[in-house]
């Protein structure tokens, strides 16, 4: 039995305080991934008054089984790294709202951040580090059947598909990893791949090829997910011939990459063609006093160490802004 301890709020020597609606903070950071948590440590050490609003601590680290390229650790689990980040933040008297989503921003000299529960917080600068989330297919049936056979988290949900027929959409690393997990227990796994080949790393493709209860449909795309109370079948189209066929399936795992969480700033900040927030080399966005860092920003390459470094940079830029514009 494994225990993925991720010490909670009472577990550490935490000095965190609640974020207050009647205080004007120097900086409010939105997000809880590597970029946000690094920014938080930098801001607190600079001595500016700092708030952090996040739905969770860890961000994509919570989805990552192991990390082997974050300096100082040749091997660490995503959960362990996330709890180390969190502990480092909680040594400071930082003001935090956890478990809530930031909904909208009103710009001005004092920026107003509204959360989904209606509460409003104020700050002179904001750092947006909302990262990325799993991309949806956007086909009929997907939204209606989410949680009823349509799944996005293979490590969470694969055990519920033992002995069933499942479809995995996507032939990249996450698609093949999921397909391997599922092939161990499912009756049959069909991969639907847009391209003519799998794009996952060779080592994964080799591991996948060892299973005999699998099929790969190349140059196919999903056009509809069917079912009344639960997924019953998946309609797929051959991209070369246009022919549509129906696959019997009780589950469909969607592993087609990530999209930036930009809903908070859409219409407010300039985005690039991928929907990422345009930033310059000091993490400045198109509005003064609003900074962005990590996967949600236009910085090339999405990695933990890069997000952390960008978070540090955004924090220093924000602190400089606070000092310069009294």
């Amino acid at each position, binding site marked *: *039995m*494994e*225990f*993925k*301890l*991720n*010490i*909670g*709020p*009472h*577990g550490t020597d935490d000095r965190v305080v*609640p974020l207050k609606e009647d205080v004007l903070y120097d900086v409010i950071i939105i997000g809880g991934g590597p970029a946000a948590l690094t920014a938080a440590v930098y801001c607190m050490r600079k001595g500016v008054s700092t708030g952090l609003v996040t739905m*969770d601590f*860890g961000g994509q680290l*919570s*989805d990552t089984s192991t990390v082997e390229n974050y300096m100082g650790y040749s091997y660490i689990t995503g*959960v362990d790294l996330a709890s180390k980040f969190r502990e480092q933040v909680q040594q400071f008297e930082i003001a935090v709202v956890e*478990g*809530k*989503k930031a909904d909208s921003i009103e710009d001005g000299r004092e920026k107003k951040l509204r959360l*989904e*529960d*209606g509460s409003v917080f104020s700050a002179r600068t904001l750092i947006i580090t909302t990262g990325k989330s799993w991309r949806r297919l956007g086909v009929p049936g997907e939204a209606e059947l*989410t*949680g*009823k*056979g*349509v*799944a996005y*988290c293979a*490590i*969470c*949900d*694969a*055990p*519920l*598909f033992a002995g069933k027929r499942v479809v995995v959409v996507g032939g990249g690393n996450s698609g093949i990893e999921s397909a391997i997990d599922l092939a161990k227990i499912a009756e049959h796994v069909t991969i639907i791949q847009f391209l003519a080949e799998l794009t996952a790393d060779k080592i994964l493709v080799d591991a996948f090829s060892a299973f005999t209860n699998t099929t790969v449909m190349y140059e196919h795309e999903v056009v509809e997910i069917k079912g009344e*109370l*639960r*997924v019953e079948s998946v309609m797929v189209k051959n991209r070369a011939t246009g022919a549509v066929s129906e696959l019997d399936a*009780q*589950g469909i795992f969607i592993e087609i990459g990530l999209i930036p969480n930009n809903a908070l700033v859409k219409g407010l900040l300039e985005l690039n063609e991928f929907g990422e927030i345009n930033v310059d080399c000091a993490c400045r966005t198109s509005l003064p006093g609003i900074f962005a860092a990590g996967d949600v920003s236009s910085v090339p390459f999405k990695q933990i160490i890069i997000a952390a470094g960008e978070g540090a940079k955004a924090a220093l830029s924000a602190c400089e802004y606070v000092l310069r514009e009294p």
Partner: protein
Amino acid sequence: MAIFDDKVRKQIGDILAKLADRVNLLYFTQEMECGICKETHEFLNEFTSLSDKIGLVVFDFVKDRDKAAHYGVDKIPAIVLLDKNDNDAGLRFFGLPGGYEINSFIQSIFEVSGLKEPLPAKAAEALKKIDKDIHLQVFISLTCPYCPAAVSAAHRIALESPRVRADMVDAGAFPQLAVKYNVSSVPKTVINETIEIIGAEPIEKLIEAAAKA
């Protein structure tokens, strides 16, 4: 065989050192223990040995059926959390809270021991208005990083309201229930058999949904 390795044992011990009031755990199992009942029993023995503020009383699901009925325990393994005065706020764990779920287990124990932030005023108000019995069943898998948040939210509501009972149910340990409630994604919260919530929602949303049950 030890359930925890040295590192985890030390970590949990350090965390539990900060408990406030005593917490009493009731464990329901049976004489001929099923595999997972045996493992859960060993887990609880080791876990409770790490703090002198956690008590453990073991009941037999068959022989102590009055107790089981009293606490609404209809399946095993089952863990019931009681406060220092043996008051039952309605917090249950069905299955072994291992994997990621160790986090919700520790969190719930802390909250029962009195260490908790007050609920946001609006949430507390909405919860007070609930005037019927609410039963929350949170289905989880032990490999799901998002599930502890859903369990903690449900347990928190149960702790605050005498009308609410909240169960963690490991879909892996109770596959027949996973089928019955059509669980194909976790966390999934079933409220009074009628309302379903998929994913971990903030406590406000959960209270809102419970109000409609």
